[in-house]
Every structure is written in C-alpha cells, then in structure tokens.
C-alpha cells in the first residue's frame, strides 16, 4: 500500500509544477498586469512587488524565487488590496469554503447512494423513473439559477432561512448554500450508483452468492456494495473540483466570505496576483483530493493495491 501511495504522489508533482509554471508565465505576459513596464503603479504596490518578485533578476531566477516562496506557503501580495497577501486571504476564506464543500459532499453521498440503489433495485419501475428524472433535472439546472430561486422562496417568501450572510457556527446560514451546492452532486452520485449497482448485479460472483442461498440483504451489503461504490469513490475526485467551481456561485449569491468570493472579486477587480495565487492553490487542493481518492480506491479494491 505504501508503494502505491508513493508512486501516486510522485505522479502528482510534475503536473503541479506545470500549473505553477503556466500561471507564473501567464501573469508575466498579462497586459496591464504587474509586470507590464508601461504601468505606473502606486508606490506601495510597486514596493511590495519588488520585494516579492525581485524584478531586477533574470526570469528563471524569479521563477525559482516564486517556487521557493510557494514551498514556504507564500503566494505573494495581493495586487489590489495592499494590506493583504494572497495567503492571508486564502486562510481567511478557507474554513468557510471547506465547511460548505465538505457538508455538500457528505450530503451528496448520504443521499445519492441510497437513492441510486433504490432506483436500481426497482429498475424500470416508477421509483426508478422518478429518481432518474429528478436527478437529471438536478444536473441540468445550474447552481446560479437554483440558488437565487431557493433564496427567494425559503428566505424571502417563507422567511424560514436567512437569505445571505454568514455567522460562524450558525447552521441556519449553511442550509441553503449547502443544498444548492449539493444538488447536482446528489444527482450525479445517484445516477452513478444506479448504473454501477445494475452492472454489479449482473456479475458472476453475485450469481454465485445467490446460488449459495445467501439472504438478499447479505448479497447486497456484503458482496455488491463495495464494488458498486468504487466508481462513486472515483467520482469524488473530479467532484471536489466541481464543488470548488460551484462554491464560486454559492458564495457569491449567498454572500459567504469564502475563498471563492475573494477569487471572483479578484477576477472582477483584475487582481492578478490574487487570481494567480488562488488558481495555484485550487490546483494543489484538487491534486491532493485526487490523490486521497486514489488511495481510498486502492484500499477498497485489493487488486489495485497488489499492482
């Protein structure tokens, strides 16, 4: 298992370096960006940039400095907000984003897997059609449509839940954002689970288990469940990436002070360093999540471990 983990880790490094390099050189090419010689910058920003990037040094040396900075967790100063570094902004917003994201992912699995299994077991019945249609709707309708509508119905018209804002530790403020964020993932997980279970149930080993006279619940729980979950687990990697994207909308609409909101504001304000730094951060996060998923996969399927 350890060998497998190490190999996976080594595979991730080149991809990450590629992303960092792409971000770095893209930023340098940006017209109107921090490295545009024609820019006249306010003195504080110019001073920050000089200190951070060592602009008088050759390009590769600057890149090296940037990498070294990354290793220390330093992503550079914000281009627009002169009192903050990118790293500071990320650490402010991260807890909010992670909480919402983790809650949404958990909800997606806890709700999606049973729904998908139910649909598979009652295949072609009305339950199946109902679940699958609702699931397709959940995937098709985008978050930025669902979010305001939910806020309108539950926040304004019914007044049950707060429309926007965030209070640390307040569950009420989490409900609508988490539901909005989770909706397409519940749908994906349900569809995935259904397809996976249907396929697993056709397997030779399930037929063997039935021929052994094992109780139907045992066949399902002990023999079918783990193989069924494998594609769902695989999905969690890309799902996490998509969750981060979704959080951009959710944080915007519900006014949550998360990383996504800072990112979008940064994009609108053309805060180059912020945007770059955050992309690198996001990329690192996603690569890490994919790695965790890979490891989980290896733990679940003994065949992969022994490779």
């Amino acid at each position: 298992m350890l060998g497998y983990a190490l190999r996976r880790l080594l595979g991730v490094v080149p991809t990450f370096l590629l992303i960092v390099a792409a971000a770095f050189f893209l930023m340098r090419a940006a017209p109107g960006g921090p490295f545009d010689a024609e820019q006249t910058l306010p003195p504080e920003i110019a001073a920050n940039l000089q200190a951070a990037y060592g602009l008088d040094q050759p390009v590769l040396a600057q890149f090296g400095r940037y990498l070294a900075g990354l290793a220390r967790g330093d992503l550079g100063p914000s281009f627009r907000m002169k009192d903050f570094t990118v790293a500071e902004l990320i650490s402010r917003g991260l807890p909010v984003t992670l909480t919402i994201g983790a809650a949404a992912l958990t909800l997606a699995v806890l709700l999606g897997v049973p729904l998908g299994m139910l649909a598979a077991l009652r295949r072609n019945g009305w339950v199946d059609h109902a679940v699958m249609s609702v699931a397709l709707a959940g995937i098709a309708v985008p978050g930025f449509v669902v979010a305001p509508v939910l806020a309108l119905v539950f926040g304004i018209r019914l007044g049950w839940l707060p429309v926007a804002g965030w209070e640390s530790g307040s569950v009420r403020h989490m409900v609508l954002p988490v539901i909005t964020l989770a909706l397409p993932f519940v749908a994906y997980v349900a569809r995935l689970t259904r397809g996976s279970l249907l396929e697993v149930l056709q397997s030779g080993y399930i037929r063997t288990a039935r021929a052994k006279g094992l109780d139907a619940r045992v066949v399902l729980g002990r023999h079918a469940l783990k193989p069924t979950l494998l594609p769902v687990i695989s999905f969690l990697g890309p799902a996490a990436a998509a969750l981060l994207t979704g959080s951009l909308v959710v944080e915007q609409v519900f006014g949550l002070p998360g990383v996504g909101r800072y990112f979008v504001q940064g994009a609108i304000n053309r805060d180059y360093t912020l945007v770059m730094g955050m992309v690198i951060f996001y990329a690192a996060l996603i690569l890490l999540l994919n790695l965790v998923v890979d490891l989980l996969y290896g733990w679940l399927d003994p065949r992969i471990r022994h490779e």
Partner: protein
Amino acid sequence: MTAAPLLSIRDLSVDFVTPRGRVQAVREASLDVAAGECLAVVGESGSGKSQLFLACLGLLAARGTTRGSACFRGQELLGASPAALNTVRGTRIAMVFQDPMNALTPHLSIGRQLGEVLLDRGLASPQQAHERSLAALQGVGLADAEARLRQYPHELSGGQRQRVAIAMALMTRPELLIADEPTTALDVTVQAQVLQVLRRARRDGLAMVLITHDLGVVAGIADRVAIMYAGRIVEIAPVRELFAAPAHPYAAALLEAVPRLSEASVGRLRSIEGQPPAPGEIVQGCAFAPRCPDVTAICRREAPALRPGATRAVACHVPRIRPEPDS
C-alpha cells in the same frame, strides 16, 4: 420400480422478453435426476441447457419467466419465494458456474467466502467453519490451504478458482450439485484435475448434473445423458447405450462428429450442416428437421414429444432405435 427422484422437472419452459419480442430459451423440458446419479446434459450454445437449471434455482436474469414444474424432494422450486429457495440453495442443491474468473467476489477473502455459507445459517461456529473450510480446500486438492484462506480471488489461477468454487459448493454437503460447464474455460490438464475432483465428490453419494458440450467429459463421469437441441430435450439415455447406439439423429450426428484417434485415416472432420434456429425464431414442427438426414413430412409439421421407454426417452418421429416400452 426405482426410488422417487431427487429432482423432477416437468414441462419446464423459459421465456425471455426482449425488445424484439419473446424468445423461448427452454421448451417444455422434462427429466428426472435420481439420488446419487450423475446426469450429463449436452447441447450446443443456445440449446437452453444452462437456462433450464438456472430456472430451477431461481437464478434467471430479470426478464425471464418460467412455466412448468421443478420439484426437489417434493418441494416445488419454480415460482417459490426467494426465502423458500434459500432453504434449498447452497445447502441441498449447490451450483458451480462456467467462468471461474468472475465466480468469486473480488474483495472478500477465500476463507470469508467459504465460511459464510455455514456461519450465516448458524450451522457452525467460527472455529468449526475454519476447520471445514480447510478440509474443503484440501478435498479439492489445493495445497497450502491455510494460506489460501487468507488470499483473495485474484491471487489464484482459473483452475484454482474453479476448485475453490467447487469446495464452496460442497461445504454444506448438498444432495445435488449442478455444474454448468465447469471445465470449459480451463485448459486440458486443469480440466482433468477438476473432473477428478468431481469424481471424488460423487463417492460420498452426491448426485450431480453436469452441463457440458463436450462428449469426452460425458464419457468419463456420467451415468446418464440428456441431449438438448433448440430448447428441447431430444434424447435421454444411459451413457453406454447412447454411445453404442444413439436413437435421435442429432445425437447420432454429434457422436459422428467427434474425431477419434483410433481411425486409421483421417478424412474430413464431419460436422452437422446448417445452424440451429436463432433464439427468437418460431419453429414449426421439429426444430432439427432442416438439418436432419432422416427427415420426413410429419417432422416438418409436428414437433415430436419426448417418448419415455424402459431405459431411454427420445423425442423423434423417426428415431433410429425405438425405445422399448416401459413394462
């Protein structure tokens, strides 16, 4: 008068509903399996031989429906509830399947899969289950049984997995073992080993249904043979009698097609011209008529019924040997 049969199948039909219409996989099949005997069921792919026994055990794929009766020691199996079937499946009737590579659950250890038949039903304590699993593995000739119990299916070869499957089937000392082409997916040397295992199992009085398309296997192990064609049983006879003098033209053609090493000159390999009917095809009269060398007018009009005799039964209007009437 022989004792009551262990398994008694009467007029069993299996239909599948497909987008292109109904497909009849098995048409009114009837046969008996006596306690302790080995019945081979021979037929080409698509002859319905597997579906027949899958139906008995309630293991058909979702779109299959059955008609008729399959009685095991007086208990009707067709249409029985899963709970009722589970009192028979695995304990009194066991089944082994064709493809050993996919027959075992990949994420459970061998020991776990062997033990659960006993442990789930409270038939043994964990200690006893462990011992019986060891004994079962040794009984099928697997060396290093203790280590095997901890291994996972993917660590074993095809032949080893098939032997584990057989051991698993025999754990509860069933009365009947149905083996669906147990050696087809294995190479010849491994085939011989698996057949040896099956032969040994019979010594304790185990009755067996051996489904196969290989007549050579039949000769080595079976007492009686049932031959199936296009979903129907066309002949049932003791092995020696069939090999000496087949009654049904199809059976005769099958035997002729087997190349014999003893023949002095090897001429062309004899095969049966034509194809069996496609799965959904509606057949008028005898299904073998288009390919039959002895075909007559009545063959094309009327499907022959299985006529039982003293020792054998034939479904043919013009059998080469008329079965003696049952006295």
